[in-house]
């Protein structure tokens, strides 16, 4: 029970746990909330309207910030997987599992906001744009990671196999990006990538959005880790019960 530090044995209720979480993370919560609201405000009020694309371009800030968050998340999956294979500490695998889920969530956001942006601007839902296509492959890759985890019963084998896949997948990521980008570069450019006229206000807004999403990532990660630790606790109790029967 030593690893489940956030669960007081025998007495703590879930509401108690949540209270403690909010108290322990109050600065992170406040900062994330503030930055997210500011980013939203900047996206609509501070950043100018884009000359060619119009209002839809405002999705750019959260679209890119989501992609940034997803890459951070998948990097953590990689580091967690590597460390787990090296050290065998379940804590690293928990980071990987939690992070993969969050990464998939935000890649989904990228994959939905991308077409929503493409449709009014280029009159097509899917442009086979290099970055979007790579995001699609990444999305499938990490969904596969989650499916693999789901298919394996709780055991060291599960954590180990997941770690192997997490490792292989991330090593592949740059190669995927490169090969897709190169594939795209060979085609006559019908749709000019993200041909935006970038004003300085836009860059400020983008930077702030990325900062806000960075904090959001850590907040979600901590929440998700708490869930994972609880699952471990339930697991170990189930095992104890099984032994006693």
């Amino acid at each position, binding site marked *: 029970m030593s690893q489940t530090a956030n669960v007081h044995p025998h007495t703590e209720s*879930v509401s108690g746990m949540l209270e403690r979480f909010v108290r322990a993370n109050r600065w992170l919560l406040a900062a994330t909330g503030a930055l997210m609201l500011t980013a939203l405000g900047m996206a609509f009020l501070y950043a100018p309207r884009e000359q060619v694309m119009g209002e839809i371009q405002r999705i750019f800030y959260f679209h890119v910030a*989501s992609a940034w968050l997803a890459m951070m998340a998948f990097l953590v999956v990689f580091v967690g997987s590597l460390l787990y294979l090296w050290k065998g500490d379940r804590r690293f695998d928990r980071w990987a599992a939690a992070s993969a889920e969050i990464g998939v969530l935000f890649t989904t956001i990228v994959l*939905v906001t991308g077409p929503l942006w493409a*449709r009014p601007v280029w009159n097509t839902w899917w442009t086979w744009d290099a970055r979007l296509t790579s995001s699609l492959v990444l999305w499938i890759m990490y969904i596969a990671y989650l499916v693999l985890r789901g298919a394996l019963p709780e055991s060291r084998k599960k954590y180990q196999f997941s770690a192997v896949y997490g490792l292989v997948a991330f090593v592949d990521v740059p190669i995927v990006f490169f090969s897709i980008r190169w594939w795209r570069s060979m085609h006559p450019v019908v749709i000019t990538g993200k041909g935006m006229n970038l004003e300085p206000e836009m860059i400020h807004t983008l930077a702030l959005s990325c900062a806000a999403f960075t904090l959001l990532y850590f907040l979600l990660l901590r*929440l998700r880790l708490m869930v994972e630790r*609880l699952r471990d606790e339930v697991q170990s109790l189930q095992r104890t019960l099984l032994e006693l029967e």
Partner: protein
Amino acid sequence: MNIYLFAGYSFILVLIFGYVAFLHGKLHKLGRELDELRDRLREKARP
């Protein structure tokens, strides 16, 4: 503001808050499981 922009931001917010709600639900469900398991363990220890 056009419909696509609205759809985009709405989707983002729904997903983020939806995920938090999902985790919240997970926590409660696991908490109930934990309580149930602890009760069963306590009964084992009694006789």
